[in-house]
């Protein structure tokens, strides 16, 4: 998109896309990057994966940053786990931001299509991601630093998730939150908040890498338009998630993810 050439209609369309991504993403406990990237893939059929991933990651950063500030004020972030997972994830996020510049568009579309299909099926199977009956009620994160195995599992898992997320241009919350809940036994409220902190750090590191490599040049208008929408939509999603059951909406989202995933995979043939 030509910088400075953004018309009001384009701004409104991008802000509306960001709003939907922010609201729906927050409703299902993610940052919205997994909705922004496929929309950008369909809007910009000729753009490079690096350009699309860098745009989405910058938007994700704005959203995760504002979410992190809110969660910090609420005391919902476990500081040790957040700093541990964020610092463990940054090198992988930087490497992936460099690697995505070498990824051909067809492979990117295919990988993203598969991810969406998998995420859609997972959402359809377990719409609200409720913890299993065996999940502990008491938070166990305070003991994380005294359990080297669990600490390393969290650090390595978070690091690989950040590689995947940075490669695909998503924040990674859609994978990281279930990982924290199911593999590390985090209570859901701490998992979503701690994941936001990690996501903000890795999205910042990846965006800074893209900015240094010149990938973000000329995309500021698009990023800011999307970011405005996302930051307006996220609180709406949070409010909706507290007021409605949401299972039907999330099932519809799962079906939508599957459809977009199939659509992207079909472009390979």
């Amino acid at each position, binding site marked *: 998109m030509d910088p400075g050439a953004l018309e009001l209609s384009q701004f409104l369309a991008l802000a509306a896309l960001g709003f939907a991504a922010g609201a729906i993403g927050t409703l299902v406990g993610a940052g919205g990057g997994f909705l922004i990237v496929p929309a950008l893939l369909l809007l910009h059929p000729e753009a490079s994966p690096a350009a699309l991933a860098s745009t989405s990651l910058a938007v994700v950063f704005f959203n995760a940053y504002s979410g992190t500030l809110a969660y910090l004020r609420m005391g919902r972030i476990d500081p040790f786990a957040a700093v541990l997972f964020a610092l463990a994830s940054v090198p992988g996020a930087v490497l992936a931001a460099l690697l995505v510049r070498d990824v051909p568009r067809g492979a990117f579309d295919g990988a993203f299509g598969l991810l969406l299909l998998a995420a859609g099926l997972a959402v359809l199977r377990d719409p609200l991601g409720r913890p299993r009956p065996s999940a502990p009620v008491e938070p166990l994160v305070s003991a994380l630093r005294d359990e080297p195995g669990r600490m390393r599992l969290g650090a390595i898992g978070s690091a690989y998730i*950040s590689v995947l997320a940075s490669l695909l241009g998503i924040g990674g919350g859609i994978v990281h939150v279930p990982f924290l809940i199911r593999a590390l036994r985090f209570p859901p*409220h701490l998992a*979503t908040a701690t994941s936001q902190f990690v996501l903000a750090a890795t999205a910042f590191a990846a965006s800074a890498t893209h900015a240094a490599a010149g990938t973000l040049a000329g995309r500021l208008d698009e990023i800011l338009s999307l970011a405005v929408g996302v930051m307006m939509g996220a609180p709406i999603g949070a409010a909706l998630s507290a007021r409605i059951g949401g299972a039907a909406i999330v099932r519809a989202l799962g079906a939508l993810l599957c459809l977009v995933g199939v659509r992207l995979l079909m472009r390979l043939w």
Partner: protein
Amino acid sequence: MTPRTLALTIAALVVPALWGWLFPPLLARVWPRRPPDAPRPPLPDYEI
């Protein structure tokens, strides 16, 4: 696949495991520990 792509791919596969294995004990060593008799901060009543 260029040598740059290959090097970055290998690094992206190896570095997370290596760093994720080495880094946590280092952070745990420097992270301030809560005194055993300190009261636990109350957790708010969440709506998830």
